[in-house]
């Protein structure tokens, strides 16, 4: 089956910086892929090229097998929910109405339901909405469009935790009932970790990780206990990070542990704490060991 998105040695440079460098990846149809990375890693640039808003400097990008830029037949099969979407001087209902004209799979009932779920007043001017509610408008359009390829670029600026969970739940329900290809770029990895099938991580414009989420999950563990016991346990394992406080140590290792290893840990009275997807990805990005992780 043709991949939905296919990038080959994609590059994008501006006068003074390289936004994307030799990016090659594929996104398979009907999957949920997380596009992860720090600020400025190139996630937004990549999504803008996918949606035809920007043109690559080098390399090749195909969506549904064709170049997306200025390609109406490809563009109408995609919807892009951006972080800061500019609207004309519209009311909420105008934006929804206009979107309903353009998207072939638009579901009006779903749109109205989502407006109620997010408590968006249809007759309020978008300009006068709070940041979170503006984001919600984008999300409503993005979900109700039922586009074959749906891209979200940090779509929840200003949304509180309750609204974000509402978004994830609706996204999941929609995806389950009307499968589509989803590419979601986010900082809040742990919130969406269970929704992702595949993760791609960018760092300084390069792909540093491209793997099924299941492969990444469970590959890291923090071992806590008395120093000697911990050191004995991690003796021939890949250590990512070491921390000591008095006679106790906390060491993070990258190797998966089998049942025998678990038994050994129990025997040594060590506690094992699996790393969250977010922590794993932070390590994958090569953050220095003693730098704080902010969620």
């Amino acid at each position, binding site marked *: 089956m043709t991949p939905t998105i296919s990038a080959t040695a994609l590059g994008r440079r501006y006068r003074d910086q390289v936004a994307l460098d030799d990016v090659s990846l594929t996104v398979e149809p009907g999957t949920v892929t997380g596009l992860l990375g720090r600020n400025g890693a190139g996630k937004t640039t990549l999504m803008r090229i996918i949606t035809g*808003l920007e043109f690559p400097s080098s390399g090749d990008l195909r969506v549904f097998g064709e170049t997306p830029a*200025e*390609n109406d037949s490809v563009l109408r099969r995609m*919807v892009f929910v*951006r972080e800061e979407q*500019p*609207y*004309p001087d*519209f009311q909420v209902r105008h934006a929804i109405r206009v979107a309903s004209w*353009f998207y072939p799979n638009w579901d009006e009932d779903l749109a109205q339901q989502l407006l109620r779920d997010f408590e968006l007043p249809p007759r309020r001017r978008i300009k006068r909405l709070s940041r979170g509610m503006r984001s919600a408008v984008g999300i409503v359009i993005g979900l109700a469009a039922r586009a074959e390829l749906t891209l979200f670029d940090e779509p929840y600026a200003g949304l509180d935790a309750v609204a974000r969970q509402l978004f994830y739940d609706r996204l999941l329900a929609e995806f389950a009932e009307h499968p589509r290809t989803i590419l979601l770029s986010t900082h809040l990895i742990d919130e969406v970790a269970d929704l992702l099938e595949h993760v791609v991580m960018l760092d300084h414009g390069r792909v540093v990780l491209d793997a099924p989420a299941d492969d990444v999950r469970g590959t890291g563990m923090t071992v806590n206990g008395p120093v000697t016991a911990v050191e004995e346990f991690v003796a021939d394992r890949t250590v990512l990070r070491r921390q000591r406080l008095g006679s106790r140590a906390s060491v993070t290792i990258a190797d998966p542990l089998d049942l025998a290893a678990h038994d050994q840990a129990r025997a040594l009275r060590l506690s094992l704490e699996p790393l969250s997807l977010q922590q794993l990805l932070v390590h994958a990005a090569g953050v220095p060991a003693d730098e704080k992780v902010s969620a």
Partner: protein
Amino acid sequence: MNTLVNVGRYHLVDRFTWLALPWGIMAFSFLVNIGVALAVPTGPRGIYTGGLVSLYIFMLLCGALSMTRALPFGLMMGISRRTYYAGTALLVLTLAVVYGLGLTLLQVVERATNGWGLKLHYFRIPWIMDGPWYETWLTSFVLLVAFVLYGMWYGLVFRRWSLPGLVAFIAAQIVVALLAVVAVSATHSWSGVGHFFTTVTALALTGVLALIALTMGFGGLTTVRRVTI
């Protein structure tokens, strides 16, 4: 085709700017002119004003707005830049047909009432919009299209290159005009130019205007291809 129509519908969500304001502004300008005609003693040939230009200038503004304020959301509707431009142009053509007809009707009434009883020539522009109704319709149509496309081009230039680009754009036009003047002088063709303008028919002039409109359209289409949001 449906998508192009939807772009037009998108612009028309702002009915106030596209439908109400042009006629409102023109009506205001017209009333001002009536007031002037009442206040000032008119000669035997009547009063000629250029007040109608207010409509055209405002439509130029609408064109500019369509490519600045309305563009970002429009492009996010899953359409290419050229489709957005073409859809907007289609709306402009449609409105120009309708508005041109409106202006023609008003011209007919003006002529019938001998300048609204005041010998005011507001809807009758001597020599280009003073003839048969079908010529007036065609001329006002072409003129409206030219003005709006011109405005759209300005909007796009501003989007792509902001203020410096806008200044360069205007400067370039001035340079082209100057070059034309120099060329005419150098070839001693002023009499030829004068002869052209005195003998040309309104229809021929409309043809020239149509060419200008096409140039505007082509310019805008070229500029839109790499505009970013």
